[in-house]
């Protein structure tokens, strides 16, 4: 719309002059000179802080200049028509009007009203020259700044004309199946609080389309247009089967990964729980031991009290603490001497017990005696020759690694 004006002095004048011409009403083309004079003074006071003397001087100057200059009519006109959106001083127009009337009175030439319109542009131009020369520097800067900004183009008339040229009829008079387009009731942007919030944004888009789908379906059904694809209707799809397989595989993979991680977490939790169980067991054992000791002490005390007068107790019993043994056996003793009825530990334990001993004297248990030295049952000459040793066939056993490396290796 607005023309780009070169940032020269002339251009600045022209754009300045715009302001003056904007709100000029055609009915006040020829005001009375007196009234104009008054108005002029008023405006001068408010517009620029100039004295009346200056103003009058200015006026005479203008008139002179007007005769001399007959250029840039086209430019001025252009600018007048172009920028109507420039707001600004309400009094400028009065000033312009005044100038016009002044010049008309001075010049005796009978000029047509139509012509004078173009001339008033010139006059206004002159005004602005003076204004600028007097020094309204802030204005000057402002104008320069506005001319530098690249004007945006939005020619609505041309856009609508172009639209009209190609527009399809989507009014309610044509069947919906003709165009199949739905316009949402409310702008989608209203539903989006932040454009960076992916979930909310996509949800808003989907809601827009969902609403459209519902409306389209009712409209199409009303028109008797088939909407739903029958289940036995097969045709080529937009996304190939391979792609869909990939999608499916990915979904499955995701699901299984989730499941696996859940399982692993469960295992970890169990391990933690197992530790707790172990601690609890240890505590229970300690408690049992304490109870046993208490019981023994109690019994000893009891026996000391009625030692000699005991009924069934003999001297020997007393010496070997048979009662204590009995008492412990009746409770849950740890001593293992398994009778036939009692539950024996597992075979491995029994073997180990027999080999290394359980209870009793430990001293000299592993030392050889005559029989053991003579026994060569565990010896094999063949194995001796291969150099493998008596153990399993592992010829070389790797040294035990550090804990961290062992753990890493297990995974």
């Amino acid at each position, binding site marked *: 719309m607005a023309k780009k004006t070169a940032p020269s002095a002339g251009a600045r004048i022209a754009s300045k002059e715009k302001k003056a011409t904007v709100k000029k009403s055609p009915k006040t083309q020829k005001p009375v000179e007196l009234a104009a004079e008054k108005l002029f003074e008023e405006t001068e006071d408010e517009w620029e802080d100039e004295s009346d003397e200056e103003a009058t001087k200015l006026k005479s100057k203008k008139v002179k200049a007007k005769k001399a200059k007959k250029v840039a009519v086209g430019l001025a006109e252009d600018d007048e028509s172009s920028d109507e959106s420039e707001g600004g001083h309400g009094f400028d127009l009065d000033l312009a009007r005044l100038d016009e009337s002044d010049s008309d009175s001075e010049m005796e030439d009978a000029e047509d009203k139509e012509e004078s319109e173009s001339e008033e542009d010139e006059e206004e131009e002159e005004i602005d020259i003076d204004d600028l020369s007097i020094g309204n520097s802030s204005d000057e800067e402002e104008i320069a700044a506005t001319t530098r900004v690249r004007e945006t183009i939005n020619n609505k008339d041309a*856009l609508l004309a172009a639209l009209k040229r190609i527009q399809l009829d989507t009014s309610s008079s044509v069947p919906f199946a003709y165009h199949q387009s739905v316009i*949402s009731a409310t702008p989608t942007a209203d539903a989006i609080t932040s454009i960076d919030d992916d979930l909310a944004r996509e949800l808003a888009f989907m809601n827009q*389309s969902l609403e459209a789908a519902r409306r389209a379906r009712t409209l199409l059904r009303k028109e008797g247009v088939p*909407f739903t694809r029958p289940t036995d209707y097969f045709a080529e799809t937009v996304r190939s089967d391979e792609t869909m397989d990939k999608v499916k595989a990915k979904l499955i993979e995701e699901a299984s990964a989730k499941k696996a991680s859940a399982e692993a977490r469960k295992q970890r939790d169990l391990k933690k729980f197992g530790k707790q169980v172990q601690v609890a067991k240890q505590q229970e054992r300690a408690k049992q031991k304490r109870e046993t000791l208490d019981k023994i002490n109690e019994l000893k005390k009891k026996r000391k009290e009625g030692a000699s007068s005991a009924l069934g107790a003999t001297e020997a019993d007393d010496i070997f603490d048979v009662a204590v043994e009995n008492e412990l056996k009746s409770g849950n003793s740890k001593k293992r001497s398994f009778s036939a009825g009692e539950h024996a530990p597992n075979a491995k334990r029994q073997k180990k017990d027999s080999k290394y001993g359980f209870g009793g004297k430990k001293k000299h248990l592993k030392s050889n005696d005559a029989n053991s030295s003579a026994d060569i049952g565990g010896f094999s000459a063949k194995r001796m020759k291969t150099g493998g040793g008596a153990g399993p066939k592992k010829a070389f056993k790797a040294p035990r690694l550090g804990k961290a490396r062992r753990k890493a290796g297990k995974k």
Partner: protein
Amino acid sequence: MASVYKALSKSKGDQPDVEKDGANGGVKRNKQRVLILSSRGVTYRHRHLLNDLAAMLPHGRKDVKFDSKSKMYQLNELAELYNCNNVMFFEARKGKDLYMWFSKVPNGPTVKMHAQNLHTMEELHFTGNCLKGTRPVLSFDAAFEQEAHLKVIKELFLHMFGVPQGARKSKPFIDHIMGFSFADGKIWVRNYEVREVEKAKGEGKGDEESTNKGKKPKMGDKDTDVSLVEIGPRFVLTPIVIQEGSFGGPIIYENKRFVSPNQVRSELRKAKAGRHNVRAEQKREGLGKRASLGLLKNGEKKKDGTGLDTRELFA
């Protein structure tokens, strides 16, 4: 004679791509054909997006890459050659930026848009799918009715993405919906599958199967509801310029808010360079300050050329 008649009858209708359809009693037929092609230098993603769009448009005609970037008007001739009245042109620049041109061929308008955030159907692992060539329902944001340039863009989308009724390879059902939303000064394009799901209250299932599917004119509305599953592709368009003609003519709209990706990149680079400059400046200033205070170490000290240095004087 026949050709004269044809020309005359054609010129009578003010809309060139809409013709009277004799069979349909006065309803104008929507005839659209879209030429879909790209420039040289597109990346695989751009190409896949183009393929996705072409797969969705049975009234589209895919052509080989167009060689020239300056002589865009040649596209008009090309479109005429293929009997197309729409052109969708993917212009790639610098092997990374994609600009999409949408044009009505004989006499405009043309919209140029910058495409961002492209995601093709394949790379989006959505579960939706639809038949090739079914007519989509086009869902437009209400914002498209509010401004003149958006109205034009909407009309172009309607012509290009909407499959015209009775198009050659189109299928008779509706199973997907294309959404065009306007947010943040950009147009967001989405594509969803329409799935019909049972509503909570069940009716007699047997008769539903036979009658409900598609053919039932009115009553089918009650028993099922629609749900959407996204198919893809996804992309975001920023309108840049609208020209009055087809690949030419005066510019009738220009988006002031659009910032070219080149500018964005250069700003980034400058910011990066700026960081270094600021640091270098600071270092220099610090050195100067220390020199003025006489705090410099021996290695850093400069000789002054006057010859009045104490060490020189009393050497």
